[in-house]
């Protein structure tokens, strides 16, 4: 299924550092989804038991709310938010 995102939907770049435990990425993605955001891009590096994740997410809710929910995860060491940009119309498969 292909859906077109709303061209007014803000887009945010987030980087996240977390321990590489079982279901770590699932936990992160689940929080992003439940708190009202969609993942447009995701890059993951793994080294020394740590995951470094760069996410581009889209959503209309305040991103600070998502940030505080991610920071609350026990295995997350750090969440950094880059300045928001309004997304151009994009297609997400």
């Amino acid at each position, binding site marked *: 299924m292909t859906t077109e995102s709303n061209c007014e939907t803000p887009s945010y770049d987030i980087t996240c550092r977390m321990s590489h435990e079982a*279901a770590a990425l*699932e936990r992160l993605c689940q929080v992003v989804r439940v708190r009202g955001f969609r993942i447009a891009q995701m890059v993951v590096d793994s080294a020394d038991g740590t995951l470094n994740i760069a996410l581009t997410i889209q959503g209309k809710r305040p991103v600070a709310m998502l940030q505080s929910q991610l920071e*609350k995860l026990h295995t997350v060491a750090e969440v950094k938010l880059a300045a928001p940009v309004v997304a151009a119309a994009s297609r997400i498969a």
Partner: protein
Amino acid sequence: MNGAQHILQAFHHHNIETVFGYPGGCIMPLYDALVDDVSVEHVLCRHEQGCALAADGYARASGKLGVCIATSGPGATNLITGVANAYQDSIPMLVITGQVPSALIGTDAFQETDVLGMTLGIVKHSYLAESADELPGILEEAIELAQSGRPGPVWIDIPKDVLLAETSAAPAYAPAQPKATRPELTCAIAMLRDARKPLLYSGGGISLAHAEDSFREFAKCSELPAVVTLKGIGNAGKHSAHNLGMLGMHGSRAANRAVDECDLLLVIGARMDDRATGKLDGFAPNAKTIHIDADASEFNKLRNADIAIRGDLNTILKELTQAIRDTPLAINDWRKQCQTWRTTGGFQAADNEEPLAPITGPAFISQLSRTAPDDTIIACDVGQHQMWVAQHYQFDRPRHHLTSGGLGTMGFGLPAAIGAQFANRNSTVINVTGDGSFMMNAQELATIRRYNLPVKLIIMDNQCLGMVRQQQELFYNNRESHINLDDNPDFVAMARAFDIPALKIDRTDQVRRGIETILAYNGPMLLHVAIAREENVWPIVKPGGSNKEMIDETRRTAADKKEKIA
């Protein structure tokens, strides 16, 4: 020592004396270890959901960690509702499940489910123990995590081979140190002093932080008019002169009016749930907000806070008290106004003087409140009876009122009462339930009988799903849909089948004696209370509506008459 024995060692180390569980294939090594360890009391419930909810009730009533245990597959999935219930209400809980042996994970083995994956959204944290060597560290961390900060359930899924493997590993976990005091407190105190109509709004976070005494001292010193959430009932004590009662959908007129008119909300240990706030646009429209909580993610989630303070509520409340102790707040006019609202719009003790009249919910609960001992713990289910208890029972302590606030889990009350009785062996514990909720976990009558728990059971039976029927009547043009339960079993006979004595009442003049009879009985007893099918909970705010638009019986009757005339 094998993995299973390490679990029991962790229980001893953390003074965990009572656990609720149900055995099965993959958790058998732990049950085998329990044979040799008589110092951990294992309570065998009759369904894993009963185990989780009993552990929840134990934790709520005691303030300690609740522990539940189940096997893999259906044992684990049956726990889920109970764990979600604990998560929504921030109840400290340790969940231990067996998993299929490591080599079989991912092969669709017998009784294999991806428990870690399917429970991510209902736990504070979870672990899959991949080796026996890491298990002691996981146990230490999980027990600490479940109880620290904002509490919640922590789940450890343990493959059978890990339970059986020998290890000499020792726990290695250094808990995080509490953060330093916040400078925002000074600003909050200044804002409180500037306010002309400040209102104290407290929730379940007070008891979760073990801060009841600090809260009462602050409430007494500040003499702030106060409202509470469903989970905050009991925070102020039943003799508080300034408590306006519960706010929200079924809150008191006084509480909702005060929220509407206040110019400052001092929110402590509450998350501004939609059932409490109603439509956010109309909630406390003139008020600034100070929000104090253990969990920073609650700030600005639903309402922006002018000042947000994260930390231990006990410490913060003591600092607030210290700051205002010597200089009282100059809000006498506001206090008087709130007192007037309390007199005219608070929940009044309901009575019915007609001896042969049908029993009404509010009158029954009022009588129960007058009759039951002070240390009584009420474990509610979900529905109309739950709201009548919240409105008409006078609670002196929040841990005396066990209610499924966030998840609204029908079937919570009976197993929660079992847990509460294990936590408070000498207290009176009453499960107040409805006919719908009772049937959700009625199998736990066998647990009451097995342990001869003196739990009292009160079924308020209106032969239907009353809260759903009420909303269908009010908001769906009275189109009743699948709420009829007039084919309920004979509850008295049902209780007796479990060797639990029972009696039925259906008239007002039987209420007092019925309550006194079950309270006086030395053991478990069930009271079946027949009430009218058509009875509603008043007042009510339409879901999604503003708390200003409360509907009460008088207004509805007037509207009906007008409609008929038209």
